[in-house]
């Protein structure tokens, strides 16, 4: 017999949880690095570089590792991507650089670029001077809104160019989703904050916390007080299921739950459902499913309305979920969540199929799954309300901030990048946007 509304803390011992949330991809050993770096062919016009949104010179940094110049390798990485350390840990390399590696062709195994990148960045020699210097003060002052990956990358590049930067951050900590969103086992040991300390060491960057655009400050104010503005506020809304029962206790937003998880000092304290359903098919769905399992949920099921092959999460991520005991139910479209004031018991779905034209349609077949918790992980949405009502940047067809190739918005002194503009919503892309916007601002001023 199932116990309804089974949501509890302390499903596992602290030690079990610590073990579950340890580094998912542990660092390579020196010997592994020797072998892995040896495999890189130092390709000409290397396809892996094209596949990296920040164009890190991969063959060059790997060669530097291989010749014993690991510090040089780290500099090479960081000069293209100041968050190269977190990217090495969180990038879905199987869809980026490693997917493009020529070693896949005959050996079906790419050079382990991400792990080599991590090895190098972790060994930047701090007894040597900070690897970046600031150009002489330009007297220009730029406001950045949001201290996520996009904002931080933009700030660092501007600071290198000699500008003064103030970051206005709504939260109490910087890092954006690196601090509040990325799965814990990808970024262990408070890596994000250490990395940000390193970013700020360049100088010339001030962060003002608890300053939300639209609440404490307005775009107009910032534009009046600064020579240019960069918006990197990510996405603060989530998509809704729009089905009956969505408002019941036990139906949660995955991103909000992960946010709590990321800030919880004793993970065993977190309330965890016995039977968990995750609605979604992307990275967030996988993350919440795996983390629920690691917290001790007995049964975790990812339900997706299309076929498994259409999932946004890469095969590698799907395998990670399977390895952690997560089930998949595909071709099932949510219809309602059943429960009462005290919680939920069941979620119902219609079986779906594709019609002749390839359109997804619901059939009459009903699938019913018992549950204590339902996580919504069906995508985040940009909220334009912080932009205010007067002069504000125009939005694109997806409702995000519209920018040109220089990451400039419809307001010539306002730039934007990261998740708040259209893209693939990855940390490494946010860094790329931040870098490029900074260069555009620098050239414009």
């Amino acid at each position: 017999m199932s116990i309804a509304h089974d949501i509890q803390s302390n499903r596992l011992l602290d030690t079990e949880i610590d073990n579950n949330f340890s580094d998912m991809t542990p660092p390579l050993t020196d010997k592994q690095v020797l072998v892995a770096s040896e495999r890189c062919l130092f390709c000409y016009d290397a396809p892996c570089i094209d596949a990296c949104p920040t164009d890190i010179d991969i063959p060059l940094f790997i060669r530097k590792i291989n010749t014993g110049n690991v510090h040089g390798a780290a500099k090479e990485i960081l000069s293209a991507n100041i968050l190269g350390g977190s990217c090495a840990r969180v990038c879905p390399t199987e869809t980026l650089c490693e997917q493009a590696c020529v070693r896949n062709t005959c050996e079906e195994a790419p050079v382990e670029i991400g792990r080599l990148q991590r090895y190098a960045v972790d060994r930047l020699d701090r007894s040597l001077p900070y690897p970046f210097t600031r150009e002489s003060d330009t007297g220009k002052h730029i406001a950045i809104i949001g201290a996520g990956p996009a904002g931080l990358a933009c700030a660092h590049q501007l600071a290198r160019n000699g500008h003064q930067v103030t970051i206005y951050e709504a939260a109490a900590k910087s890092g954006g989703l690196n601090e509040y969103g990325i799965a814990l086992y990808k970024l262990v040991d408070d890596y994000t904050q250490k990395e940000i300390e390193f970013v700020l060491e360049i100088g010339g960057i001030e962060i003002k916390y608890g300053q939300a655009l639209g609440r404490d400050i307005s775009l107009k104010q910032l534009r009046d007080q600064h020579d240019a503005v960069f918006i990197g506020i990510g996405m603060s809304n989530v998509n809704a299921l729009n089905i009956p029962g969505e408002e019941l206790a036990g139906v949660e937003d995955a991103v909000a739950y992960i946010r709590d998880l990321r800030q919880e000092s004793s993970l065993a304290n977190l309330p965890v459902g016995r039977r968990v359903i995750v609605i979604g098919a992307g990275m967030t769905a996988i993350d919440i499913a795996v983390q629920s399992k690691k917290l001790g949920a007995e049964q975790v099921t990812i339900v997706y309305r299309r076929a498994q092959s259409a999932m946004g999460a890469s095969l590698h991520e799907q395998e990670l979920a399977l390895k952690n005991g997560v089930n998949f139910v595909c071709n099932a479209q949510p219809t309602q969540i059943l429960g009462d004031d005290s919680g939920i018991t069941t979620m119902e779905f219609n079986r779906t199929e594709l019609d002749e034209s390839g359109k997804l349609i619901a059939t009459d077949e009903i699938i019913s799954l018992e549950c204590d918790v339902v996580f919504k992980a069906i995508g985040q949405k940009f909220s334009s309300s912080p932009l205010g009502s007067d002069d504000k940047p125009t939005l694109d067809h997806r409702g995000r901030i519209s920018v040109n190739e220089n990451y400039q918005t419809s307001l010539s002194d306002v730039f934007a990048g990261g998740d708040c503009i259209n893209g693939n919503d990855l940390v490494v892309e946010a860094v790329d946007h931040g870098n490029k916007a900074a260069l555009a601002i620098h050239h414009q001023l």
Partner: protein
Amino acid sequence: MKKNANLACEFIGIKSINPFWLASAPPTDKAYNVIRAFEAGWGGVVWKTLGEDPAPINVSSRYGVHYGQNRQVLGFNNIELITDRSLQINLDEITQVKKDWPDRVIIVSLMVPCEEEAWKNILPGVEATGADGIELNFGCPHGMPERGMGAAVGQVPEYIEMVTRWCKQYCSLPVIVKLTPNITDVRKPAEAAWRGGADAVSLINTINSITSVNLETMSPEPSVDGKGTHGGYCGSSVKPIALSMVSEIARHPETSTLPISGIGGISNWRDAAEFISLGASNVQVCTAAMLYGFKIIDDLCDGLSDWMEKKGYNNISDFSRMAIPNTTDWKHLNMNYKRIAYINQDACIGCGRCFAACEDTSHQSILKTGDADNRKYTIIEEECVGCNLCEITCPEPNAIVMKDIDTGLPHLSWLHHPANPYREEP
């Protein structure tokens, strides 16, 4: 391109933004390559060897390879001749490139018959290009010696001295003499160059070699229509030979002040640092660029510059020749020094390579214990002579460490050793 301020240096009065030049070879064959090299950041080039017109003609199928496991190239050889383009085309290109790249070094490599007229004729045109110096190719070991040039000259010290003298006489440019390793004692040609007035020597050129035989056709590689010939071997496997030769010239009293441009198997910044510490003032690279392209200059410069910064060396001359005082003759080595191997069990993977090596071919100093599930190898300290063989053969970088043993005995060389019947009293 990155600038590494601490790499700027001077070689026989020629300023270079870094100590890395491309050696005279296909990478420096024509303006197109040289411009790409300069764009990539190379400090200088020694232009592919020029000769008298008509230019020689090359065969097809020119290189043969010596592979390691996994197809990495340990070395390769070539049967190419000097430039196969006419003298004037080369001189015109050199003039233009030097004009366009004033901060980069261009040295012109030359090889003409061993006759005064030939050298007298070619030198004015070379000097007129604005090049920074000339290098005399006395090293090419294949093809050209059959015509009385290259190594055929380099193997006769008297010829080296004579030709060097002609060059100093008919041309005001600095003269670098490029030496062949295909001789018994490299100090002799170096002395000859010195006597002839050379400003510097460069070494090594390629080594006589046959890289492989095709067992189907029974032809040596590279095979030209079923026949092969010995070629000049180069690449990382020649580095140890080149390093030794450089050190011999640097240590030799007669040539110890003769500047050296080090060449041979330099593939990364460490190799370069080693050549410089053993006597070279700058280095030249050929094979590594031929295998990976010009972009390796980034690693060469950055790696060397960072290492120097870490060590507190402000410029190349700060560590140049620093290993020379530690390079000596066997008879001066301390016979009371003792080191033995130590196996770090945590890093050992139990392959037994060290055992096979020591048991079969060295001093039976490794003990095999344990069972099939747990093979254990330990050093028998009393037996170990500290030969390093087990450490060399071990696949794990940290499994075998050679440790210094304090014998408490004073320094004692063979020169003064009681077992030496000809010992000198201290």
